[in-house]
């Protein structure tokens, strides 16, 4: 059984290199679920389609999730629906970007 909260915390170590905010607080992580025993499925998005950091961010998410105890396999799916919007950010992230 994977501790999904631990996964979420681990993903907070993955930062958007340009913005300097982690992917969880940026609201890029849409879904974290354990499909089968030890198999993790993560649905995430990017701040903009065709984001140049696309590959490095998704790979970093996959790597970080794989560090959590009990994770044997990680599937990362990058989706565009729903499109990312600033309301998805945490309050702290919105404040850092001057959105609040």
């Amino acid at each position, binding site marked *: 059984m994977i501790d999904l909260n631990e996964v979420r915390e681990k993903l907070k*170590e*993955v*930062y958007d*290199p*340009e*913005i*300097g905010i982690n992917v969880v607080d940026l609201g890029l992580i849409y879904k974290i679920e354990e499909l089968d025993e030890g198999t993790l499925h993560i649905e995430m998005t990017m*701040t*903009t*389609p*065709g*984001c*140049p*950091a*696309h*590959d*490095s961010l*998704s*790979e*970093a998410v*996959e*790597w*970080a999730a*794989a560090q959590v105890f009990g994770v*044997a*396999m*990680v*599937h*990362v*799916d*990058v*989706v*565009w*629906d729903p*499109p*990312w*919007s*600033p309301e998805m950010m945490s309050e702290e992230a919105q404040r850092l*970007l*001057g*959105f609040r």
Partner: protein
Amino acid sequence: MQEVADGRAVGAGSGVNTSQSPPIHVPLRYMLMGLICFGLFAVDLALQARPFALFDAGLPAIVGLTHLLTLGALLSFVMGAVYQLSTVAFLMPLASERVARWNFWLYAVGIAGLIPSMMAWWRWGLAVFGAVTVLAVAVYAALMVVSLARTHVRGPMHDFVLSAHIHLLLAITAAALLLLIDGGALPSLSAWFAPLLATHILLAAGGYFLFLILGFSYKLLPMFTLSHGFATGGQVWALRLAHASLWLLMVAAWSGVWFLWVLGGVAAAALAGVQGWNIAQIIKKRMRKKVEAPIQGVLAAAVTYGLWALLLLLQTVWPPAGTGWKPVVQLELMGVVALTVMGFAYKIVPFLVWTQRYSKPRPGAKRVLIADLIQVERARPVLAAFVLGAWGMAAAAWAQSPVVAWFGTALIWLALWVFCGQMLRVMDLRKTVKEWTGRD
């Protein structure tokens, strides 16, 4: 976009691989060469300050210096950026990454021989290295045209970028004809030297550089300001006006019909207005409330573009007697093209270096972000000095004032040296050379 999401391989260890970009050392080598040429341009500019600022375009030293900027610094840097950005913006691979890699050496040899040949007006050098450079630029432009023809992502940005590369092919054809006429190989065309030269300048400076800047601004500005949901209706009008302006001015150069010059100037001014509206829509919808210094530099270049269009219109209505088109050409090259390239360089170069060196997760390693590579706010004084210098040089060309010319040159010189120093520090030459070694 769905197509992208559907096309992914997912699973442990596979990563989410949609990468179509060439290896980072491919764009970086062109950018490094561009930076070196920016530095050399700054050195030679200090030596040629007066004739360059007053744009004594006929002097071989000034022809060489101008091409050191346009071919050596700007085109080289832009080629690297285009190889990287196009694959991201149009979700396509390059038609041949190997050609992009090897063409660099052809281009570097061509530029290394052509610029000194221009400065000395050495005809054999012009013929040999001119041919090599024309071939290298043609290979680059053809590679991009083929790559862009294959993408499914269409729209004004695509059409701007595709048109730019077709214009580049035409511009170098005009350049080759100019060299042949000058060398006496085509005496029957010698009467057309002046309109051919105007065509070459219009196609290269306007048709290539400006089209690229206009097109990629629809991708880069939203990306760096996190802008979403902005109106895009004006983009297609910008494309139409850009084509109208370019072709009207070229037909005017060949026909000498005053009215066509005016129409071309009106189209350029209307384009500046529409593009200003397009940029305003992007900036209005940005999520990063604080606009960073490099993007402010790009916006200053956009304002300069508006001033440039007004100056162009003014000169078409009241053709200048003494100064000719010098201030117009000066302002476009320095205040619009070079300033935009420098502004975006502060964002693109650190990102490429970060992707190459720090994007792979390493257990226990310190987290490195782009902000650790460069404090982008340090771009502010550099870009401010450059834009003031560019305006100063255009004013000097207009007023034929050596004092203003020295003032503008000094600012440009200073700005370029600091810019090159900052960029080379981000790149870290020792690491760059090491990463490069064994890749070709």
